[in-house]
């Protein structure tokens, strides 16, 4: 059932992540695509097919964004599709690109992800209000942060986790982002800074959360024979996985992200990974909130349930730790243009496995990396596993 052909990532590119970028979404897509093509040593005419990922149309305020952005993604007169699975879009877009090539349909595929959240004012949070069930949730004034606060609190309650432990994730990721030239919110902060920041929806505070961002990121995929002609160090996509859980989120126990586990199992099986913490050298785990990094580490089976906070406090997930998590700086540090943020994670794993990550480089010549994203109503997981 799995793809018959090996697929390599041969180039990656991204724009700065900022609030209020002057460039349009289309211009951002073009910038990221151009960089990825240059890094791959290809021209647009060499590309067989294009996949674009972008999250809710309501941010850009342009319905059917796939069409709106197509020219910027180099899709003119090419096979093209837009994919969208909420916050899971960024990594899922890479997965969709993978099957374009693995299936044998194409030899090359340009994979682009974009988000421009700052167009929606006074705050893009209100665009999120419209994702909720109109009967059961919206009349109550629901916000996106409510539901994450409910999930975070449940997670803390079931395992007896302290906010001090969770805040350590924000401290680490914002510090890691100091070494990322595209980062929006790199900072040296302390656990106390997080605990003293403005309370939004307890237990979620200002510094627990990623910012409103604009940006784009892109990769170029190639079949094995094309990749071998173009580069001596391709990075192979060895496993992909995605899964969704029920939309009745108040009927699920929010303490554990089962959907991420389902997606990870699919990807691990494909990649032949039996013992994830031993076999994964570096991981970019979706971290729009600090607790989500921990929650997702557990869903990915990178540690036992409830164990992620302890590993974080012990420094295991630092760049030079045994299990480096989010060496890029993650969404908390680099920024969170939704789909582009997931793709940034795929780019980071590509650069880490090529040994090109500069000051962010994880020591010890990492060979196997994982990127993961999460979305919809706390129900969607997407996972990609790459090897050099």
């Amino acid at each position, binding site marked *: 059932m799995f793809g018959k052909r090996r697929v390599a990532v041969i180039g990656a590119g991204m724009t*700065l992540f900022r609030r209020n970028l002057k460039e349009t979404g289309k211009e951002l897509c073009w910038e990221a695509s151009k960089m990825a093509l240059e890094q791959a040593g290809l021209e647009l005419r060499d590309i067989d097919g294009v996949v674009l990922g972008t999250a809710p149309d309501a941010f850009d*305020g342009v319905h059917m964004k796939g069409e709106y952005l197509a020219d910027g993604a180099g899709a003119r007169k090419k096979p093209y599709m837009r994919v969208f699975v909420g916050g899971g879009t960024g990594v899922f877009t890479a997965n969709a690109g993978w099957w374009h090539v693995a299936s044998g349909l194409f030899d090359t595929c340009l994979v682009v992800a974009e988000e421009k959240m700052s167009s929606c004012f*006074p705050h893009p949070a209100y665009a999120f*209000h419209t994702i909720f069930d109109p009967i059961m949730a919206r009349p109550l004034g629901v916000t996106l942060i409510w*539901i994450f*606060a409910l999930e975070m609190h449940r997670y803390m309650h079931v395992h007896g986790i302290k906010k001090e432990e969770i805040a350590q994730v924000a401290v680490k990721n914002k510090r890691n982002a100091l070494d990322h030239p*595209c980062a929006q919110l790199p900072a040296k902060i302390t656990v106390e800074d997080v605990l003293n920041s403005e309370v939004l929806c307890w237990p979620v505070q200002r510094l627990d959360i990623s910012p409103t961002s604009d940006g784009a990121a892109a990769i170029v995929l190639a079949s094995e024979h094309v990749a071998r002609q173009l580069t001596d160090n391709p990075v192979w996509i060895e496993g992909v996985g995605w899964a969704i859980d029920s939309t009745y989120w108040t*009927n699920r126990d929010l303490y554990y992200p089962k959907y991420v586990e389902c997606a990870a199992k699919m990807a691990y099986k494909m990649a032949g990974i039996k013992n994830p913490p031993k076999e994964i050298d570096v991981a970019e785990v979706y971290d729009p909130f600090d607790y989500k990094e921990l929650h997702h580490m557990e869903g990915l089976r990178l540690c036992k349930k409830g164990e992620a906070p302890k590993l974080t406090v012990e420094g295991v997930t630092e760049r030079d730790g045994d299990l480096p998590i989010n060496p890029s700086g993650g969404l908390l540090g680099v920024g969170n243009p939704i789909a582009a943020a997931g793709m940034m994670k795929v780019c980071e794993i590509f*650069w880490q496995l090529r040994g*090109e990550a500069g000051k962010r480089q994880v020591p010890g010549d990492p060979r196997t990396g994982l990127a993961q994203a999460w979305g919809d109503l706390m129900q969607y997981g997407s996972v990609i596993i790459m090897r050099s």
Partner: protein
Amino acid sequence: MSEKIKEYPGERIKTADLRAGIVPLIKYKPEAKYAWSAGIAMSKFLEELKNGRILASVCKKCNRIVVPPRVFCEMCFKPIDGYTYVKDTGRVNTYSISYIAADASRVKEPTIVAVIELDGASPGIGILHVLGEVKPEEVKFGMRVKAVWKPPEQREGAITDIKYFKPIREGEM
């Protein structure tokens, strides 16, 4: 980013320029309006809220009583076996103290939001609602709560026919 790349594109608009209105910006406010059919199961549910009752659906195969009710079971994908009522009492599964409104603006008095597992429904089956007649610091996981309904003449067949859930104090049912 890669070491091989020296410059990254992207030009941030200065906040002062945004505020001064000297950057070309095209503004638009959508006026689209919607009226949703509540559907087969949820129309019954909303009618029953007017009567002060909470309707659930039953799947005998999966041995589940769930709220909100549905016409098919998403687990076994079979039609449900019928409807039943659950109680308007339950337990707090998780909660949050919210200081923001749906548009992310600050609110003066916090809203206490919770997932409430209803008595009579299967374990772990909850609904989203708000808590009232309780201070934020008094809310606990597992706390027993009961619905406070609008007076019958004010009910309109909406989840807000329940004003909020309040704690069941010692000695109360």
